[in-house]
């Protein structure tokens, strides 16, 4: 469609300034033509081609037209209206305020600065949370790149442009029998290169590329223009970021390189796991991956190159199903007046919950009263106290077989135990809370029941309330 003049009316909307004239579409500010107020600013996206032209690039618009209408939540622009694809193709959506990550990167380039570690972690966690919200809705974005990430002034990230996305409930219009690579060359995941569409871990790879960019101002795999160039990432490790920036902590390199693993199975199993690590740097388990400064040796690359030659398309299961299989399980461990039976039963319940889910992550949490740490030597006593409780949690978890599961230990301070547990679960995309049905012993029964019930009522996820029970041999001793 030709560029629209400001002031013209289209299907009930008045066209304002043209904000963007791209190769695929024009984006205009719009208001309702009947002057009725809108609760938020709106933009209209109008493709250059129409369906009647039979052009390939209309497909991307058609995909976005399909998917944007069914997505919800704060991590996508709110959908307002859509025109008929054939006669009057347009999309009206929320005009989300903020800067794109591309603008943030450009500013750093211009000022010759690099993002602070804390900022990288914060941005990365917001983007991972946005991706997770999409995956929960059975959608993979598949074109996450700095220009498509909008940073809202309040700190959350909004993902834009669903033209290459894939919603598992709809036929994938971009798929074809030849399984060609669809994506932006610098950020595309290795499995996308061989035509896999619908693996949420492809989005985690793209977030890894952006974290690498933020940290080093370089692209880990360059910006290849050929399919052979794109195939490199099927076997090649990028230069360790710490080699390019020596003040980068090992934990951050560990996180970035885990996102960039060529095999999807070696990356974070869900974006919630990634957000978790970025928000709890001290809990990141640093491996060789985080420490290395030398590049990967030739022979290792050669072996992987041979393996990659055989990589081919495989269908992916539903995104929501995939991420359901790798939940973040949280266990709330009582820290005083807890009987052996309670602690034992909690451990059994956790072992059972993790047992059938190899990629699941465990967060062991306890809540202490703020009064405990409010002594004169505030700073010092707090760390000592927290260390004490953390050790207690580690001892509790000792008998569990946690080789397959990333585990972290957290001491929360709050006078409202239930509230602290629920907030923690919300903030970390926890899928399941395991806690005692009675947490403080029988003499306080009257209070006790309220904590688990309050958690069960307010939690954003499944809550397993564990009743204490010791096996016979323990009772005999």
């Amino acid at each position, binding site marked *: 469609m030709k560029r629209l003049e400001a002031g013209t009316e289209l299907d009930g909307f008045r066209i304002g300034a043209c904000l963007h004239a791209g190769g695929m579409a024009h984006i205009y500010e719009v208001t309702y033509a009947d002057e009725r107020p809108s609760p938020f600013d709106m933009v209209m996206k109008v493709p250059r081609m129409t*369906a*009647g032209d039979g052009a*390939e690039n209309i*497909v991307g618009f*058609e995909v976005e*037209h*399909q998917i944007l209408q069914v997505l919800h939540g704060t991590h996508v622009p709110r959908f307002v209206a859509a025109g008929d*694809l*054939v006669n009057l193709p347009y999309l009206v959506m929320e005009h989300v305020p903020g800067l794109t990550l591309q603008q943030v990167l450009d500013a750093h380039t211009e000022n010759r600065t690099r993002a602070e570690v804390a900022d990288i972690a914060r941005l990365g966690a917001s983007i991972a949370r946005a991706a997770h919200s999409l995956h929960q809705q059975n959608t993979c974005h598949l074109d996450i790149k700095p220009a498509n990430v909008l940073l809202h002034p309040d700190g959350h990230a909004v993902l834009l442009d669903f033209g290459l996305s894939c919603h*598992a*409930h*709809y*036929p*994938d*219009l*971009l*798929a*074809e*029998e*030849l399984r060609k690579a669809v994506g932006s060359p610098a950020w595309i995941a290795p499995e996308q290169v061989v035509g896999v569409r619908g693996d949420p871990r492809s989005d985690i790879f793209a977030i890894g590329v952006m974290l690498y960019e933020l940290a080093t101002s370089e692209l880990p795999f360059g910006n290849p223009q050929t399919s052979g160039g794109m195939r490199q990432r099927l076997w090649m490790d990028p230069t360790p970021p710490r080699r390019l920036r020596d003040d980068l902590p090992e934990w951050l390199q560990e996180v970035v390189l885990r996102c960039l693993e060529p095999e999807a199975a070696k990356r974070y199993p869900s974006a919630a796991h990634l957000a978790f690590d970025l928000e709890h740097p001290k809990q990141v388990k640093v491996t060789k991956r985080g420490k290395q400064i030398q590049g990967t040796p030739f022979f290792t690359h050669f072996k992987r190159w041979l393996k990659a030659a055989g990589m081919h398309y495989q269908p992916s299961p539903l995104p929501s199903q995939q991420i359901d299989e790798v939940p973040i399980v949280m266990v709330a461990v009582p820290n005083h007046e807890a009987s052996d039976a309670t602690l034992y039963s909690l451990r059994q319940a956790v072992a059972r919950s993790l047992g059938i889910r190899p990629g699941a992550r465990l967060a062991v949490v306890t809540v202490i009263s703020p009064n405990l740490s409010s002594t004169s030597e505030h700073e010092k006593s707090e760390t000592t106290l927290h260390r004490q409780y953390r050790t207690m949690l580690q001892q509790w978890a000792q008998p569990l077989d946690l080789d397959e599961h990333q585990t972290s230990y957290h001491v929360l301070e709050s006078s409202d135990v239930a509230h602290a547990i629920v907030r923690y679960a919300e903030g970390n995309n926890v899928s399941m809370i395991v806690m005692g049905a009675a947490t403080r012993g029988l003499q306080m029964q009257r209070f006790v029941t309220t904590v688990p019930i309050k958690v069960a009522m307010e939690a954003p996820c499944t809550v397993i309330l564990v009743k204490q029970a010791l096996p016979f041999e323990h009772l005999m001793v």
Partner: protein
Amino acid sequence: MKYALLSDIHSNLHALDACLAHAQTQGVERMAILGDLVSYGAFPSEVVARCQKLQQDGAIVLRGNHEELIQTHNINTANPNPSLGSQTAEWTHDQLSPAQRFWLEILPLTAQVDQMLLVHASADAPERWRYVEDERTAALSLDAACTHPDVRYVFGGHVHHQSLYYRGTGRQLMAFKPTSGVPIPTPKHRQWIATIGSVGQPRDGNPRAMYAVFDSTAAKLTFHRVAYDHRAAARAVREAGLPEFFAQRLETGK
């Protein structure tokens, strides 16, 4: 206009009534029965009567292969061990009145309405009852139907599975496994072919009845699975003295 597409009822009155009731809640305005009203189940006469009434109220009713199978009696008099299928075909023949059998015999093979071509099996040779079971056979049916410039959609039954085939960016058809209850955008500028599953004899391990709703105005297709009293339907099969296999099939959906 919202159409309910129902096929392969196979004398299962419980399942048919459940789907019709469900279609009412979806705001369906017109019914289309895509063949195989009879065989296998315990209520051939009642199902035929129901469909005749629907036809009087404006429904499209098409002929399937089973409407032909039940026409001739004593199909296998020479065979001392008749197959399960021919046993029920004979039984069904006897349950139906001559008028009902005649009505079934003269049902049309296809119908074309609102850019849809409706057919029991494959549009490329409706009378040969070819299965549309993969991308290749779906393409044969779709290409044959779309020689008519108005046709954008081909809906059929016969295979007892719910599948949607579409063209992606490549030339060949792609198969898509639908999720029940999700309206799928099927815009008119593309060509689509779907098998809508079986009302009365699911075979995918899920006993719930299958049918679909097509909204021609919004260009959206929704596949549905409807729970019904499949145990009662199976009980009726046993009570009618029909082969045990067909009762178990309703119970397990296999």
